[in-house]
């Protein structure tokens, strides 16, 4: 496989075929906790992109020196150290952004998609491929988080983009159903996140099934390569 085809494959895997939120179903704790509105969800997503890109880069660069038996503790060490450095750097140099994103950054350490990509991809591939994989997987997570946040916010509170004024001053949240909307608290609480995520996964599988029957008569099953975990 040529270099550019390989990279295109990585991007397609991250954004759709092995999407961390919909196909691998990894790193659910932060996803479900943070996706109460779209701005928070995208903020966490972008922070994860940064952490995952960096950790894939470093793991890939050091992979020759990491003994097989101790790779998992070393990966966790690398991820935790990078997240700490990111947290401190943001706090010091982008303090206003840190006040918005800051609470999300330590949560990334608990997101096992970062460890999963270090183990399943970066430990076996070169610097460029691993970095691209980190970015693609990260943005795969971003769009799922954005959609989940959008739906939860819309159903739960009847608003869109609440909290946007914290990121871009001057912009205002949109009230879709007006002030009379009573709200539907379940959507904003963790069980609502599970229901809506389940709906998204069902839609994802339906699209894949539909696509597969149209493209070839006997379709290869679209399957997650990693077993589901929280």
């Amino acid at each position: 496989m040529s270099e550019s085809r390989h990279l295109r494959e990585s991007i397609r895997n991250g954004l759709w075929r092995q999407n961390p939120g919909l196909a691998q179903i990894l790193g659910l704790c932060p996803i479900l906790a943070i996706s109460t509105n779209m701005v928070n969800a995208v903020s966490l997503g972008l922070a994860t992109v940064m952490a995952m890109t960096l950790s894939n880069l470093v793991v890939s660069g050091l992979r020759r020196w990491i003994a097989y038996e101790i790779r998992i503790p070393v990966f966790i060490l690398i991820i935790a150290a990078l997240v700490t450095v990111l947290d401190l750097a943001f706090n010091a140099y982008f303090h206003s952004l840190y006040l918005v994103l800051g609470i999300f950054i330590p949560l990334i350490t608990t997101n096992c998609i970062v460890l999963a990509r270090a183990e399943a991809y970066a430990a076996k591939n070169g610097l460029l491929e691993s970095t691209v994989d980190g970015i693609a997987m990260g943005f795969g997570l971003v769009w799922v988080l954005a959609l989940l946040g959008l739906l939860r916010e819309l159903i739960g509170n009847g608003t869109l983009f609440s909290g946007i004024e914290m990121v871009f001053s001057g912009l205002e949240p949109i009230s879709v159903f007006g002030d009379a909307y009573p709200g539907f608290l379940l959507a904003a609480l963790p069980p609502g996140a599970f229901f809506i995520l389940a709906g998204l996964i069902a839609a994802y599988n339906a699209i894949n099934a539909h696509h597969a029957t149209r493209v070839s008569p006997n379709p290869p099953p679209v399957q997650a390569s990693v077993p589901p975990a929280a």
Partner: protein
Amino acid sequence: MTVPDPARTESSASSPGFFAKLPPALARALISAFGLFAFTLAFTSLMAFTYEMTRDRIQAAIDQQQMLLIGEVLPNLAYDNALLTDVIEAETSNENHVGKIWRARNGSAPVALVFETFAPDGYGGRINLIVSLDNEGRIGGVRVASHHETPGLGDYIDPAKDRKKEAPWIHQFSGADASATRWEVKKDGGNFDYHAGATISARAVTRAVGRAAAWVNARREALFAAPEGSRFSAEQGEGNKQ
């Protein structure tokens, strides 16, 4: 998740030199242990280095933020002293949780006390607060200096994150009497609202404000009299209570 890679496992066992003389299992264990030690050392140094490099800037940013909050909790009260340097520090005990105390005066007349306190029992841990208390024993205002409450759920305690922009949750403390108020959320029989589904954050803040305000209120004169820059000990407070 992954099948062990036989080629790699073999190679680490048959390392040359010193390790070759040892039994293979011991050699492997030693190589792993040294490897892990080296990585831990390297990445801990990286974190320590970053911490050292950023410490001053982070402290400066936090201080700046705090000054802003002090301005916000002192509404419409005229004072003419240098508030930021007229500061004492309370010796924090479990009873009060009060930290620095800034004293606003107008000439020689006491105007208000602004103090740091914290709620140790927020949903996400400690919630740091800035509170002001005027000379009639009423709360001037409360602000959250830092917190780790769940975004979109418990973070309404911070007015910047509160969806009700015209009447944020935290404003209900302004004007409350430190001694005559029941410092609990309504669910627990007190005077203060909370958001359904996120009671813990509201309860923690409400109790912390009440606890600290009562402590400061009981020692108001002693706190104003304490020399600038001094530490205010718990015993000193006891003596002035009567």
